[in-house]
């Protein structure tokens, strides 16, 4: 008797045909469109709740559809070239009466799938009629033939899948991964409009050729959060999303604080063995910014410049942004002032400068924000700078906080022009920080450029916990600069060092002569900020030396300075100052055992090297990185380091 069942089991198990790949791709892509439509229908601020009805105006929903369709149909360049046209089209849609009888009436959503067949039929209608785009097309099409929406999407899919290797994040890793999960088919429709700023990793430089290494400090942390969000979704981040200096600088370190009355930050250096190479050493350069007494801080003028374009309505964008700003409001003082500019189809002042004490007014303005329309970034920036200027009084600090998913499509087409635009306005004294939200079309390159040029920081906020870190725990550093245009220059002693390699900071490299040129812009340091830079150095005579000596160049070294590995020079300006000051510090050549802080920073840097597919780490892998970091967690009061260890292990699993 059971034999019959066993036969049936075997036969059923054998009935396992492979799905048709084209059909699969089309379905996955249609499902992603349905997902976008569904998510765009979720009302703001309640991501966790089931809200079946469309509480947003019809106009906004139509725009969503228009935008997602538009994203699906054009390449990035095409998008920039033709957005003006679409904006016009969308503007027509906006003026439709909002309560007209278009679109599906609100319908109840089933709390759980149920068995009863009568209800089941209704359920089917609900899911097919929901959403402005894919759903509508599918509803009218008989199921026997492919719906029109899918027909048009399939070729696009093929087209965009092709260049994925260079552009999309995580594409190359996925393509190279073994087939069982078949992520390749699923992902082309995913985050293909993301752009990340990165440069080739700096190679090993022979000291004889180029004894001086110059770069600007960087206190951004966006890269770490982006990597975390990728790993948590089960994919390795794309190589260009990995900026090692931002990963290292994400974490708080226990560095010596600057002496009172001296420079606003204290440098410290250490030399220790490299975990992944016994024949090289890690030179760590650390800066610790002073933490002025919080009660002494000058009044602050904050202009929130908030992207309310259609792409911002995902739960992890505008709703998260609102929550984050609410958190931050609690940290402000009554004498601080807040203003708000929203930019979407057109830029507009949402909140005139208001004392931070009037919480109700500010919160109400925040609640009124609603996503819809495309992005007019330039007009928004213009207005924000004008507001900041009008609020500025002597002794006050003004800062614009730009919150966006990075879609700067309308207004300025050329990133270069955008940078020039901001460079011209930063003279007004207002700082510009950029908070990135959401994935999908995160234009990390633009964000990075904006913050870099606007004398600010770029951070990426993916969870409310990250908002807490950036906007509450480290608020003072975010908002109060203590030093500007901070540049670091290291001159290596050829008697001690044969080769060196700066880990990370590729996007921050400066020319040697720019170091002393006060006109050349560089990064700023905020109150309490920490900056860590790591060099991998190869001592003279080490078997790890890669560059063979040259025949015609004399290897003669200058006398003196023996016992010194290198000489560190730091230039900075006081906030608002125009003349730089110089700090100098010799670096001793005697290595010591790595401190906890050095070990952790090195583990994170090594992790970054692994994610970038670096050749320098050899056999050293994710497991070794996780072990090294785990042994160097220190006090870790906020649990950041524990999280890093988890992510390293996760990446190890994903990479196998």
């Amino acid at each position, binding site marked *: 008797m059971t034999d019959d069942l066993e036969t049936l089991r075997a036969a059923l198990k054998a009935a396992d045909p492979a799905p048709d790949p084209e059909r699969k791709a089309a379905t996955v892509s249609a499902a992603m469109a349905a997902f976008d439509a569904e998510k765009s229908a979720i009302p703001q601020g309640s991501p966790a709740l089931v809200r079946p009805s469309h509480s947003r105006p019809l106009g906004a929903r139509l725009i969503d559809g228009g935008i997602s369709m538009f994203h699906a149909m054009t390449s990035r360049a095409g998008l920039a070239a033709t957005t003006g046209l679409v904006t016009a089209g969308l503007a027509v849609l906006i003026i439709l009466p909002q309560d007209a009888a278009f679109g599906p009436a609100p319908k109840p959503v089933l709390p759980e799938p149920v068995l009863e067949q009568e209800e089941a039929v209704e359920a089917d209608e609900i899911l097919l009629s929901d959403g402005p785009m894919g759903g509508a097309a599918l509803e009218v099409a008989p199921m026997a033939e492919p719906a029109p929406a899918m027909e048009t999407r399939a070729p696009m899919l093929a087209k965009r899948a092709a260049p994925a290797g260079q552009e999309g994040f995580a594409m190359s890793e996925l393509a190279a991964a073994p087939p069982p*999960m078949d992520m390749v088919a699923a992902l082309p429709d995913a985050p293909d409009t993301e752009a990340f700023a990165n440069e080739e990793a700096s190679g090993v430089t022979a000291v004889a050729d180029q004894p001086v290494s110059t770069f600007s400090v960087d206190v951004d942390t966006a890269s770490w959060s982006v990597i975390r969000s990728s790993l948590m979704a089960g994919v390795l981040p794309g190589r260009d999303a990995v900026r090692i200096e931002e990963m290292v600088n994400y974490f708080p370190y226990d560095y010596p604080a600057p002496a009172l009355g001296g420079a606003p930050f204290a440098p410290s250096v250490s030399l220790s063995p490299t975990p992944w190479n016994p024949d090289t050493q890690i030179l760590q350069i650390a800066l610790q910014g002073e933490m002025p007494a919080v009660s002494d801080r000058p009044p602050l003028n904050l202009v929130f410049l908030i992207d309310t374009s259609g792409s911002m309505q995902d*739960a992890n964008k505008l709703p998260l942004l609102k929550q984050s700003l609410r958190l931050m409001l609690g940290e402000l003082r009554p004498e601080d002032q807040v203003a708000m500019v929203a930019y979407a189809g057109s830029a507009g002042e949402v909140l005139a400068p208001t004392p931070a004490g009037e919480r109700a007014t500010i919160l109400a303005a925040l609640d009124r924000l609603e996503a819809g329309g495309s992005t007019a970034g330039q007009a928004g920036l213009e207005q924000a700078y004008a507001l900041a200027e009008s609020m500025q009084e002597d002794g006050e600090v003004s800062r614009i906080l730009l919150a966006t998913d990075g879609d700067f499509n309308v207004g300025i087409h050329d990133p270069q022009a955008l940078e020039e635009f901001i460079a011209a306005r930063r003279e007004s004294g207002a700082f510009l920080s950029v908070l990135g939200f959401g994935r999908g079309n995160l234009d990390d390159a633009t964000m990075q450029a904006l913050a870099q040029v606007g004398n600010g920081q770029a951070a990426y906020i993916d969870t409310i916990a990250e908002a807490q870190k950036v906007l509450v725990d480290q608020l003072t550093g975010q908002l109060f600069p203590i030093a500007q245009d901070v540049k670091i220059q290291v001159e290596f002693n050829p008697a001690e060092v044969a080769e060196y390699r700066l880990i990370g900071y590729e996007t921050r490299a400066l020319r040697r002569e720019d170091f002393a040129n006060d006109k050349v812009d560089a990064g700023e340091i905020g109150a309490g900020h920490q900056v860590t830079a790591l060099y991998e150095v190869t001592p003279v005579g080490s078997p790890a030396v890669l560059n063979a000596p040259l025949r015609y160049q004399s290897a003669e070294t200058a006398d003196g300075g023996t016992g010194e590995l290198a000489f560190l020079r730091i230039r900075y300006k006081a906030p608002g100052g125009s003349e730089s000051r110089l700090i100098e510090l010799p670096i001793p050549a005697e290595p010591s055992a790595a401190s906890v802080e050095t070990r952790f920073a090195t583990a994170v840097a090594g992790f970054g090297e692994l994610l970038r597919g670096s050749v320098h780490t050899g056999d050293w892998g994710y497991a070794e990185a996780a072990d090294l970091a785990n042994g160097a967690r220190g006090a870790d009061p906020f649990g950041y380091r524990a999280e890093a260890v988890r992510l390293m292990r996760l990446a190890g699993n994903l990479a196998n």
Partner: protein
Amino acid sequence: MRMTTDDEALARAAAGGDRDAFAALLARHYDRLFAFAFRLIGQRAEAEDLTQDICLALPAKLASFRGEARFTTWLYRVAVNAAHDRRRRVASHAKAADGWGDWEIARRAADAETQEAVGWLEQAMSRLKPDLRETAVLILAEELTQAEAARVLGISEGTVAWRMSEVKKALRALAEEER
């Protein structure tokens, strides 16, 4: 490649609007869903269509995933419901198309043994009423426990056990006819 982030976490993230998480879920489960649909229906094109129904329904349905059940259990439930809807719709349209009576794979199978087995499966499945069929697929092919199958189908465990005994009966009847 083993994905360490679990389905439940992905589903919650997707319900909260995380596009990547939704893409990852689709990628992980599409093949399994298709195989399940195929076993329920026994016809490739219909199974593709059913899989599409399910995938397109997921974004809206995800809101109801609260994580108290395992994601796969929940997904089976969504799939079974979608199969019901589909059967109902097809039945109301025209002839009651019954997939397992017209199985193209059977015609394609080159291997004689497979062909024989497939022919038997076709016969067996076409003898089962739809509710017995889906119960048998869940228990035998998808290897759910009776308790899990009961949760998926929204019936009691006793009913699952009874249905399986009915399946057995039908198979025995088939075996006797063949003799």
